[in-house]
């Protein structure tokens, strides 16, 4: 069975928590005691009905305010697939949390309130999904019950969204009319919208083809990449010469006998053996955690990147990247940070801000020299050591990087690397 990670984006008023609750409830993924707990909580709030949204707001302050603050993860499965729901908050002040949640997802559900059509937050969430390279978008046109289940309303919103999608890097868009509150087209087919002949949300989630982590089929998009995490050297009498490089294949395939290059040193060798614990493999694919052995003694340590020699990544000390700034301290030209890509860390300084992106209108704003929390921008960085990477839009695994504040140690920025500056 395979695994689909998807994010739900939408503000509290769009009914996102209700949608997740409905998905879990109708797919019978809520257990009796959890249901009783939210029934009790619903009653104590005098809401009358069961509030499915209470299933997802796990923190005291979230329940107090009735909003989602931080990313939460939910798990459910059907006979066809396992799912990880990344439940991210939709408010503008939590853009960074949405970026965090979106970074590992293969699909995003963007909720649209049928009464309001494409709104500012629809544009914002779609932009983030696009920047983060999420291959599949589901536009969930919710609250159809409040517009008389009108096919015209649905069609108009589809047209509006298709216009918006043209400006973004999104490819597979699916539109589903629904009422999360009443359960129309979430798990069960709606009887009130006979004009809709497409799949329900769950049917779509169960059958959508996930190909972004495909390995080997298009080598150019998935070249062999292996960031070294740890060197296994038992140094015992019987394993005197054992030296294994432990890591996870973040992209592509490695086979025994492959010619490899170690970056940043540029030394070359060939793969002698691939193993997981005591099991020997002839080949290993993304996202397997394995141990590589090389035919020759090469100086390799944590932070190095082993790549297949036939398709090399970019290695550079000046890089251009899209940045989501995640800290309350300002990001400024001239500031220094620690940059982590794969397992390697190096110091970097901010050379320039090419432009800031208006996350609602997609306009590029020039002449900016500092960024605030939740701002998005294209930036140029200079690194102390060369970094090796692939452009993010080609390869999420080796094109994503983070910025760390050297004094607070906090992760302050998410970088989607574009190329050499």
């Amino acid at each position, binding site marked *: 069975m395979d695994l689909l990670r998807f994010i739900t984006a939408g503000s509290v008023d769009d009914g996102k928590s209700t949608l997740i609750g409905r998905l879990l409830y109708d797919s019978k993924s809520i257990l009796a005691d959890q249901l009783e707990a939210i029934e009790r909580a619903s009653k104590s709030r005098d809401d009358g009905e069961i509030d499915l949204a209470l299933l997802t707001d796990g923190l005291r302050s979230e329940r107090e305010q009735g909003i989602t603050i931080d990313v939460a993860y939910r798990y459910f499965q059907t006979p066809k697939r396992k799912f990880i729901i990344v439940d991210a908050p939709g408010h503008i002040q939590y853009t960074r949390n949405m970026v965090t949640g979106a970074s590992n997802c293969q699909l995003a559900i963007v909720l649209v309130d049928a009464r309001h059509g494409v709104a500012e937050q629809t544009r914002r969430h779609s932009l983030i999904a696009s920047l983060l390279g999420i291959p599949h978008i589901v536009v969930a046109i919710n609250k159809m019950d409040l517009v008389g289940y009108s096919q015209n309303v649905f069609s108009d919103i589809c047209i509006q969204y298709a216009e918006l999608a043209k400006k973004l890097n999104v490819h597979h868009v699916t539109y589903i009319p629904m009422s999360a509150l009443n359960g129309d087209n979430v798990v069960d087919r709606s009887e009130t919208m006979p004009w809709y002949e497409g799949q329900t949300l769950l049917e779509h989630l169960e059958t959508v083809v996930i190909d972004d982590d495909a390995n080997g089929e298009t080598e150019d998009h998935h070249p062999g990449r292996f960031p070294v995490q740890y060197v296994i050297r038992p140094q015992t009498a019987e394993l005197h010469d054992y030296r294994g490089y432990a890591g996870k294949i973040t992209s592509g395939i490695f086979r025994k006998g492959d010619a490899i290059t170690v970056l940043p040193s540029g030394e070359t060798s060939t793969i002698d053996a691939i193993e997981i614990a005591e099991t020997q493999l002839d080949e290993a694919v993304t*996202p397997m955690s394995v141990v590589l052995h090389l035919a020759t003694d090469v100086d390799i340590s944590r932070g190095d990147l082993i790549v297949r020699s036939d398709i090399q990544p970019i290695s550079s000390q000046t890089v251009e990247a899209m940045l989501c700034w995640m800290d309350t301290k300002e990001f400024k030209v001239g500031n220094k940070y620690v940059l982590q890509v794969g397992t390697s860390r190096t110091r970097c300084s901010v050379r320039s801000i090419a432009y800031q992106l208006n996350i609602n209108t997609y306009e590029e704003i020039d002449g900016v020299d500092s960024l605030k929390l939740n701002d998005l921008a294209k930036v140029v960085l200079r690194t102390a050591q060369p970094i090796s990477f692939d452009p993010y839009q080609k390869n999420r695994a080796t094109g994503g*990087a983070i910025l760390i504040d050297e004094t607070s140690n906090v992760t302050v920025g998410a970088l989607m690397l574009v190329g050499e500056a």
Partner: protein
Amino acid sequence: MKLDYLDQLESEAIHIMREVAGQFERPALLFSGGKDSITLVHLALKAFRPGKFPFPLVHIDTGHNFQEALDYRDNLAERFGEKLIVRYVEDTIREKKLKEPTGRNATRNGLQTFTLLDTIEEFEFDACIGGARRDEEKARAKERVFSVRDEFGSWDPKRQRPELWNLYNGRIHKGENVRVFPISNWTELDVWNYIRREKIELPSIYFAHERELLIRDGKLMATAGGVIKPEADDQLVTRRVRFRTVGDISCTAASESQADTLDAVIDEIQATRISERGETRMDDQLSEAAMEDRKKGGYF
């Protein structure tokens, strides 16, 4: 070629463990002899063999543990030749003159936190790997894989670090530590399926056996070793039971069951309509935010 979901989860967990080994100077693996931490040890074998583990196994013993779990713990450490450190809540109570909770349903579970924080200080652990899963409880659903604690061991849900792609940031100041949860994304059923697939041995209390219990508030509590003193209205019974989770005896309830094999246990878990913690953990049901509040205080 596409990996099965269990392979994907396994690979992610191994990756996280190796990040701990690569980023920290003095990590530890918290090991209780329960199924989740047993799974962690198995994952560590896959991550680091033929080398030794880059961390000791650490058990915070409340003194109210099931003997079967303790025996299993000691055998495992010996079999794999890894270092085991045990620290006792009993000692902390004596040395710090802690007040033990008394009365009906009293449990030492909360006092574990004091011993854990002392142990972290004693060995200067900068990272503690634990078997928490996000499906267990709503506050755990919010937790990052690398979860930074301040020098008081406290978790602040509003100050969590963004965690992007598979990049983990373990940089901390001296005195702080990081709780690391490699099986965050696993569910109870995933753990059981993995145990079956990998043929991992478990303590016998996970399988149906006859035992003397008392019925309290509708739950079946073990009387083992007199940890729970029967009160006048408690009914003593002998039943065929198994434990779905193995925690402190005073707050872990048994389930009536005939399932004495892995297959039978998995069938039962697949059919159940009650969550793991809902069925067995008394300590989570004290208030709506019981787990969140304990974590803020330094609980695992």
